[in-house]
């Protein structure tokens, strides 16, 4: 028996690990667990990007990988941890859809995204690794969207949005080997500023509503 692990398989594995952590986020009962899982997810993502440099031989990806590591795996989780320490009193995550069904829905999302991506890209792609990583990216995107809609706490919605961005960056890495540098830096900057602004807005929500439960944000209705 040979233990040959080719590079493409390892890259796929890291991407799948990122997807697994994203699904684990939907199963988290507490906020600090969700933040830790998000850290590992971003870490797996940056390792994926770093390794795919050796697969595609495109050295601009190294910068993106390092940026992902710095901003998404270190900076943003620190910011979120500070927010939770300062203002969150009740760390439990209240769901709209309970946890068991959420994970089941995520499984269906994974299957659906693999199915959808398998049919459409026959003619454009020659590499099967790219197809799989694109499918994983689409799955992460949909898991992020699901997380935004299925939870009541504002901080989890922010984590869902960041997961969504992670999925998009992974999709960009797999298909186009990284966007041009200026655009990539712009995207990172936007996401980072967006996360900070959402954090500040959470402070305001806490000030005015005294709770972070977004189901109470229903004054403006017809």
């Amino acid at each position: 028996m040979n233990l040959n692990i080719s590079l493409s398989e390892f890259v796929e594995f890291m991407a799948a690990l990122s997807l697994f952590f994203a699904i684990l986020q939907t199963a988290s009962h507490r906020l600090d667990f969700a933040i830790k899982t998000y850290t590992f997810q971003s870490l797996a993502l940056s390792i994926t990007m770093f390794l795919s440099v050796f697969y595609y031989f495109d050295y601009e990806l190294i910068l993106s990988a390092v940026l992902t590591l710095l901003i998404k795996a270190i900076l943003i989780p620190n910011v979120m941890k500070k927010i939770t320490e300062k203002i969150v009193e009740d760390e439990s995550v209240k769901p709209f859809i309970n946890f068991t069904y959420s994970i089941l829905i995520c499984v269906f999302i994974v299957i659906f995204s693999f199915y959808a991506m398998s049919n459409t890209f026959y003619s454009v792609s020659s590499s099967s690794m790219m197809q799989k990583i694109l499918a994983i990216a689409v799955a992460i995107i949909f898991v992020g969207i699901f997380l935004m809609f299925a939870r009541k706490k504002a901080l989890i919605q922010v984590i869902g949005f960041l997961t969504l961005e992670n999925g998009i960056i992974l999709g960009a890495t797999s298909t186009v080997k990284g966007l041009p540098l200026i655009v990539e830096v712009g995207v990172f900057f936007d996401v980072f500023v967006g996360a900070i602004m959402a954090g500040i807005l959470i402070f305001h929500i806490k000030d005015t509503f005294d709770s972070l439960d977004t189901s109470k944000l229903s004054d403006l209705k017809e």
Partner: protein
Amino acid sequence: MDKVIGVLQLVLFVAVAPAVKGFIHKLKLNLRGRKGPSIIQPYKDIFKLLRKESVISKDASFISRIAPILVLLALIVNVCFIPVFSQHTLLSFTGDVIAFIYVFGLSTFFMALYGMDQGSAFGGLGSAREMTIASLAEPTFMMIMFTFSLEYNTSNISEIFIRVHNSSFNVPIAYVFSLLALFFVSMAENARIPFDNPETHLELTMVHEAMILEASSKYLAIFELSSYIKLLLFISIASNIFLPFLYSSNMLLNILFYILKIFLFSIPISIVELSIAKFRFFRIPDLLMISFTLAVLGFVLYYA
């Protein structure tokens, strides 16, 4: 000749099973700093139980007498599927993966029936919980086995065993997911922490123990033996099919390797049992769902 080897595999399996359970228990207690009973204590337990007198509640029906035998028989049929040190098992002519899983289901079913039959509250409680866990764990188990079947284009377990041990076998790294899922499922089906505590008799925490609470003497002995066999079954699947190393064509050497491998694979079980506490019961479906996700990921990554 093949049939003889098959019978030999079965005898070896049943003989080693209690020792594995004793080993896990002793290792756990040693790591905690206690001395613990000896490894052959489970054998002594079974013989002790056989000598005792059996007490059956007067509300029990014929199920209480035949269910233990049926559970043991179902598990022995399962053992006949699994190649222990050679591919010639007793059921290698059909060795179907789906049949394997369904016979498992049969043993779970009868054990649950036994739990309800005695008419005590604990038994019903245990049966209900066991059914919840089984209904979530079995699809995961099926998914894992199907990953293998699809990779090797066969649903015969002995065939899988042969092909796995052929030299040009590349372990796709996605198998880590399936292996983790198998680990979760083993802990669930064998009533190990974090799903169930095998050392307790408190009603809050019993699942497996609750079902066999009313059993005594030879019936209890049969149930204990069944649980040892089930544990060894899962460990053998992991060691023989998942990570096929240490395999030679010499039969005696194979037996030695097999015993070495199963003791090696039982170490993680002790360590996990030691490190975490048992989960509250309604968090168990979440955990089993996560293991289902892992199994699906392993499957889809390979096969998509």
